[in-house]
């Protein structure tokens, strides 16, 4: 294993192998199909029950049914609710006819312009957000203590027995996912239930999800399934369906947790074009590699020299 530019940016086929696991299970991930999300928040609760997370306070946010607000140290799943006009469908009946049928002026009177005439033009989107477990994870790359690491499953996990709360990872995440807990200052985020994976269990959120909006499995399989799902939705006239985070050519080398969205990512509070902040670390390594290796070798020889005494 050599250190290469691919270790920091661009497509990377074997993310676990790159992290030093010579024999390892398939890379796993989440495919969150928001087109079947019912916004029940079972994922949020199942995550907290399993991971024994504290509550996040009791604040009514007034943002539709979202009272979690965002992913945080204590909320590793977050369901966003978006109330918006729906895109026009070919099958939708012409609404002008209704206006005529009403036989009434549709101006000034409160409510006058809002009978049933725009009902089919409205929709309510729901989406369960989570750590993306990036192929190139900024949080991991900037962590100075080794608290963040890549697991054999290709996921990214904060080790709370190592983390010293420096907070570099918080700014290292292009999605704004990782967060420090106020009381102990350490960084916390989704582990994709690392402890469960080792025992062959699926993550708590995916297991609970009533409609299978959150699907867990080998990433390659999920990507294939997701592409088929998009095709099906397109066939049914849901032309706005698109995948987010599944492309290995994107700024983070593709996400381990990717999404099927029904609108632009920004609508869901997701960055449209995330880029790992350490994208150039690979070329920096190339320049600094020799010096670094020499330095390290010296350090080790000193260490061993001492040990032997």
């Amino acid at each position, binding site marked *: 294993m050599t250190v290469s530019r691919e270790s920091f940016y661009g497509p990377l086929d074997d993310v676990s192998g790159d992290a030093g696991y010579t024999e390892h299970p398939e890379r796993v991930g989440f495919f969150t199909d928001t087109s*079947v999300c*019912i*916004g*029940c*928040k*079972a994922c*949020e*609760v199942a995550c*907290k*029950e399993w991971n024994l997370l*504290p*509550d*996040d*306070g*009791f*604040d*009514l946010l*007034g943002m*539709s*049914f979202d*009272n*979690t607000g965002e992913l945080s140290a204590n909320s590793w799943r977050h369901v966003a609710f978006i*109330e918006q006009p729906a895109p026009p469908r070919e099958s939708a*009946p012409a609404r002008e*006819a*209704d206006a005529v*049928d*009403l036989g*009434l002026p549709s101006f000034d*009177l*409160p*409510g*006058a312009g*809002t*009978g*049933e*005439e725009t*009902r*089919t033009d*409205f*929709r*309510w*989107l*729901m989406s369960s957000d989570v750590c993306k477990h990036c192929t190139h994870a900024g949080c991991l790359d900037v962590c100075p203590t080794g608290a963040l690491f890549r697991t054999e499953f290709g996921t990214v996990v904060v080790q709370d027995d190592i983390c010293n709360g420096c907070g570099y990872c918080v700014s290292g995440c292009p999605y704004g996912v990782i967060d420090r807990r106020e009381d102990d200052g350490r960084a916390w985020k989704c582990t994709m239930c690392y402890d469960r994976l080792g025992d062959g269990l699926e993550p708590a959120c995916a297991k609970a999800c*009533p*409609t*299978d909006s959150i699907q867990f499995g080998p990433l390659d399989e999920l990507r294939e399934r997701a592409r088929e799902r998009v095709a099906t939705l397109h066939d049914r006239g849901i032309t706005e369906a698109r995948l987010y985070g599944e492309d290995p050519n994107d700024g983070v080398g593709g996400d381990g947790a990717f999404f099927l969205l029904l609108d632009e990512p920004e609508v869901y509070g997701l960055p449209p074009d995330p880029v790992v902040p350490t994208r150039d670390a690979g070329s920096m390594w190339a320049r600094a590699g020799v010096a670094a290796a020499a330095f390290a070798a010296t350090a080790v020889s000193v260490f061993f020299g001492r040990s032997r005494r």
Partner: protein
Amino acid sequence: MGSNMAEAHPVGFQWVMEAKARGAKVLHIDPRFTRTSALADKHVPLRAGSDIAFLGGVINHILSNDLDFREYVRAYTNASFLVGEEFVDTEDLDGLFSGYDPETGTYDTSTWQYENGFPEDSVESERHREQSAGEQHGSGGPKLESGTGIATDQTLEHPRCVFQILKRHFSRYTPEMVERICGVSREDFLEVCRAWTSASGREHTAALVYSVGWTQHSMGAQYIRAGAIIQLLLGNIGRPGGGVLALRGHASIQGSTDIPTLYNLLPGYLPMPDARHADKRDYVESIRGTHQKGYWHNADDYIVSLLKEYWGEAATEENDYRFDYLPRIDGDHGTYRTVMDMIDGKVFGYFLLGQNPAVGSAHGRLQRLGMANLDWLVVRDLTMIESAEFWRNAPEIETGEITAEQCRTEVFFFPAASHVEKEGTFTQTQRMLQWRDRALEPRGDQRSELWFIYHLGRILRRKLATSTDERDRPLLDLAWDYRTEGDGEFPEPSADDVLRRINGVDLTTGELLDSYQQLTSDGTTAAGCWIYSGVYAGGVNHARNRTARTEQDETALEWGWAWPANRRVLYNRASADPQGRPWSERKKLVWWDAERGEWTGHDVPDFPKTTPPEFEPEYGEAGPGALAGDDPFIMQADGKAWLFAPSGVVDGPLPTHYEPHESPMPNLLYGQQGSPARKVYGREDNPSNPAPPEGGGDVFPFVFTAARLTEHHTAGGMSRQLAYLSELQPALFVEVSPQLAAERGLENLDWAHVVTSRAAVDARVLVTERMRPLRLDGRVVHQVWMPYHWGPSGKVDGDVVNDLLGVVLDPNTMIQESKVATCDIRPGRRPRGCELLEYLAEYRRRAGVTVETGTHVVTAHTTASDAAATSDTTAPGSTGSHTTAQGTTDREEDA
């Protein structure tokens, strides 16, 4: 309709999503755009309380366009049966049916009977209504004296056949009328009609889902009747993928109806005896017809077996199996009547067993004032709920209506064991019993209800052991010898033993029974709930069957046990055609195997196993043997599904649109405004907001409706105490449309308060496009929605939404109308303390509310006696001309 399945039953909703993925179309017809609407192919909003107008429109659409599944309808429903000449429809009586008594507000159903069917014994309708008569007839459905020999017209042309009566009754439910009443555009309405009818027939079935959005109305049973009529006309009953599916809201609410903790029922839908029943024979004769068809004819077997389980060896043939030990009802003893009796000082002790009426029942103030006027109150719950602490945290403390120092009610709080700390069965919403194993022991004083009731009974019996008082005999003779587990004075009773005795035992052999068909009336069988007989068939607890779904077919008969007889689709004989062949290969479920001479299929056939399709009973036959081979509805007195209900529904043989008790709208279809048979209680402590034709309704101009959120559970006792749920919905809010917000000056997240003549309730404002004003008959009507999970206790608290509601009941079920009322909404918080009482009084003054308001239920411009006397009666008033035209036409046909 009337269901928010994705939010209230999320895990059940996976099957809707699965069906949708396979190409099913999902329509959500509901006042509010919910998480269910978000996932549906189409959401059709309608005014809360207008569902029957909508459903009537669908029925009219089906009948006017010959879209019914005629072969199914003719063979399996009572469409061809002739109704007696005395019957007069709402068409001719301005919204009333014949037999109405304006003095008592009840119907005498004798004019609704079939021709040639023996009329019922003279019906004491007042008493019928008082006793929740729909259930008075038990699971067998209403009685008919004879199931055979009913006059029919197979051409369905006779003007008095059910099919034609139906056609005429719903003829004025036009798309235009649906638009004016419900606020649903003609296009949307017709799209629903098209989708529903095209998804039904030989090759297809459509399922109808409802919940308490339908039941909690002053005519809730008729909402469901209307849905059932559509499903029957389209051939969607008894077939896979069809049905009328009631999604119930509590883990064992089905079980607590089957094995009722309800005043008017004994286990297995046997009615509670009333004061008219001198003896058991009287009782049995009154609940089933001598010559009626089907399994309800065997009611004597069921009641005797129950009495044998209750009183064991003390129940003998000589003493009428101690039928005289059963207490008698003679009116309404429902929970709302009882609460008023508490206020009136007639009730002394009250048990609350896992229920929180201070928050969860309609008219919370009435509930709390009732509790404050008891000798004692017992609360058993997992946690400290509002009903246990009303004496120190009721809203009435602030207004001075309750003060601890002056409240005499003694309160006992007993901590309860949770679902994992006890074993036993829940019956879920598809009638399936599932056994829970005990995971661990409860802590401290936490105990199961089984323990509590068993030992309370034991202590009571001990205290009375030497009593010679006749009234104590039922308790002292009670079979209270259940097996226990553990030592000491207070061992845990065995739920397994209780279930065995519910299943039933052959007393001559001691063997467990395999089926309710083994029950007898000669005292040799004992069974606690006849419909549950078979759950322990072969000595095996089938409720504990847990064969993985991957190891059986999709009917999954080896998972749990569904009553009756583990049948998963009720009346599944109807999944085959009259000749016993599946209607189609796609939709096959149960069929006749001529070679083996029996019914077979994927499900357990819900039909006498060897009765062939072509079988015809002799005239005058009775019981299961009287079922013809094409009588799939084996619990019905005539073997057929009832489009028209000649008895058993006290507020009309056909669903009819009436306005809710409180409504901003006049009834556009009839002069009769609200249900003429609804139960009203005109009391100072139960005021109603005015509704047309009463004036003053404009003080409460908005339609109010309330419901659940996914994140909470009913009155909050199992969710507001949990941080993980409370943080997801931390505060009470009220949803309003942007238009209403503008009209009333409401800002998102600011405080507002909702007002009725009963209460004012604070809530945070959620302005949302999901709430949509409706245009109704040329005017804009706003709807206001609130979740009802909050109260003064818990990690998150808030005002009690149920305080806004009054008590007005469906006369069939005695269930309150809590899904619709009228209200006002104002920005800012409500007044506190005494000022609140003055504020409400001022609202009532402005609206002209008195004790009389809403109690004059008859507004039709004709009466039943008028119509019975003259055949050309027409209704004056706004709908008069319409009525005249229809009435005249039909009279001519009659002649």
